[in-house]
């Protein structure tokens, strides 16, 4: 199987129970997120959460199924369009608008996935790339996306009819809630009987077939799930920024999410959160600096691949401290 090196995972060690440590980490993390708006710019935080969820959803596919999609921007940007359109033109409330985005992304995922899962490895990446490019051109030309202008001034509306999302605190905690739910879903999928099958398919696809698993269906299911969760992030982003534009469907966006995942740690549940944080911060920082963004991004990419493939969280898990705390990060060849 060619995808062994991408198959990193967190492994619980025998004896010492890492559950407590992890629970503490989780609690501290959640508390930080709850308090974060006191210290950071809320829109920035919301953007970060959207991208983090995007990267985690992407990682569901790459890190746990071993499929590198180079076309996830289609689901992210596509959902943003769907949600924006539903909320703005159809007047749907935000929660339904996001659902429309999720459903649209899932549908798109089913179509793209149908073609892509026929091949593996690099071919898979190329096919997703090409098909998402097709979707990009569709968005460019379709009426409802308003071409270059994008869908602007998307109303945030009232959540469940009574929570006014135009107020940033409400919006922030709504985004945080969706993020936590999204992550919880991903966590559940990974740590479920179904996730176990995904893992085994990644490890030895032929063997999984011979055990009677319809590998294509499982892969497609994982693909659609990842697309739908990506759609959740994309729909949310449309509400946060109140717009949906072409940048989110372009292939550069697919590249960015890979970078986030790689930076944070492929196959770690929360790695992408850190990766997304770093990339978003970097972009924000570089916007007002002298350094050209693309060059830095490119260099970071190369450095990551060459020097720390495990990513931030992966390297931490693998460090002495990480191991002591009960994380183990297996880097396989």
């Amino acid at each position: 199987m060619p995808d062994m090196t991408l198959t990193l995972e967190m492994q619980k060690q025998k004896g010492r129970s890492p559950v407590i440590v992890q629970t503490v980490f989780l609690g501290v993390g959640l508390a930080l997120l709850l308090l974060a708006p006191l210290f950071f710019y809320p829109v920035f935080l919301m953007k970060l959460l959207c991208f983090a969820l995007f990267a985690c959803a992407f990682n569901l596919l790459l890190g746990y199924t071993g499929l590198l999609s180079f076309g996830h921007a289609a689901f992210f940007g596509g959902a943003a369009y769907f949600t924006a359109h539903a909320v703005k033109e159809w007047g749907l409330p935000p929660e339904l608008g996001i659902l429309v985005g999720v459903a649209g992304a899932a549908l798109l995922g089913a179509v793209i996935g149908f073609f892509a899962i026929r091949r593996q490895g690099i071919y898979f990446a190329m096919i997703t790339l090409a098909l998402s490019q097709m979707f990009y051109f569709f968005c460019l030309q379709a009426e409802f996306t308003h071409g270059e202008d994008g869908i602007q001034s998307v109303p945030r509306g009232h959540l469940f009819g009574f929570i006014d999302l135009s107020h940033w605190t409400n919006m922030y905690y709504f985004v945080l809630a969706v993020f936590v739910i999204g992550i919880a879903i991903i966590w559940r999928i990974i740590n479920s009987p179904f996730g176990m099958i995904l893992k085994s398919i990644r490890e030895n696809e032929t063997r999984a077939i011979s055990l009677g698993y319809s590998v294509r269906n499982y892969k497609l299911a994982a693909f659609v799930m990842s697309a739908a969760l990506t759609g959740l992030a994309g729909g949310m982003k449309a509400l946060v920024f109140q717009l949906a534009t072409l940048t989110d469907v372009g292939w550069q966006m697919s590249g960015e999410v890979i970078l986030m995942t790689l930076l944070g740690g492929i196959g770690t549940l929360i790695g992408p959160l850190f990766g997304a944080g770093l990339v978003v911060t970097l972009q924000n920082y570089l916007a007002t600096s002298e350094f050209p963004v693309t060059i830095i991004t490119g260099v970071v990419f190369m450095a990551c691949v060459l020097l720390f493939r495990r990513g931030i969280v992966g390297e931490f898990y693998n460090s002495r401290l990480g191991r002591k705390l009960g994380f183990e990060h297996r880097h396989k060849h």
Partner: protein
Amino acid sequence: DASDGKVKIGILNDQSGVYADFGGKSSYEAALMAVEDFGGKVLGVPVEVITADHQNKPDIASNIARQWYDTEQVDSIMELTTSSVALAVQALSKEKKRIDIVTGAATTELTGKQCSPYGFHWAYDTHSLAVGTGGALVKQGGDSWFFLTADYAFGYSLEENTGNYVKENGGTVVGAVRHPLATTDFSSFLLQAQSSGAKVIGLANAGLDTSNAIKQAAEFGIVQGGQRLAALLFTIAEVHGLGLDAAQGLTLTEGFYWNRNEETAKFGKRFMERTGRMPNMTHAGTYSAVLQYLKAIEKAGSDDADAVAKELRALPVNDIFAQNGTVAPNGRMIHDMYLLEVKKPEESKEPWDYFKVLATIPGKEAFIDPAKSGCDLVKS
């Protein structure tokens, strides 16, 4: 007086992507020049200009704009290249009650349905480009047109606007072909345009697409064959990138040309010294916008957005960019546009001496009648 002891202007545009030459860092330089020319201070407080690269991403742009407004006391944001960004920032500025002056984006939506009491559109728009090139060229004998149109909303609106003006002026549109965005090879389309026999081939696209089309038209001898090329969104920055060999004979509309008179030439050379390039309408427009903004603050005696917006609408614009320009209630700055033709290499006497001015299009003709713009601000 100024609220916080200084007036802060943000220049937000694309500095690393496809529009980096169209505006880019040079726009920031133009803003600095305007502040210097104004004297560096207004109402006795210093004027500060900051800049950021939005990387063509509306989310990054609106994130920066928010931060500027919320935490850095930025009073107004200008330039705003690319429509999606301009619209997003204008919406935000409206919400935050701050001034935004767009010089980099083309969409007429900014002063149409999505207009804002605090939003101004300064240099050009798709309509003025269409009128300039479409209307004026017909008067010069270019009465049958074939369009090469980028296959998305921006291209359609350029094609439609221009086509209407061609027809209004008694010309005909014999055909159009739609090409995808970021096409590299235009020869197929050019051959179709060539065989249509139209006198003018209108390029309703932008950036690299237009450049490639022009370059390949030269290769296929289209201009030598007697047809005219008209680029609908093209500035001196791109002409410079193409070189006169390929671009000669091309017709285009800009709101500014540095070598039009002595004053503009002087400005152009100053700008050239600082940036290494001659200004196009975005750069000159940004200069003008900053200058006018400061004038309005001075007149209003305050940097309060409502007061400044009122003055901006009232004051006439007279500077190197616009003569007797006026600002309509929808925020549109109305000024003359110029129909330009690219010189032959042998006609060019000095570096950046690229254009002949074929015609001046009066502002009233160039821009949409504010009453018909669809902007709510006009009726009230």
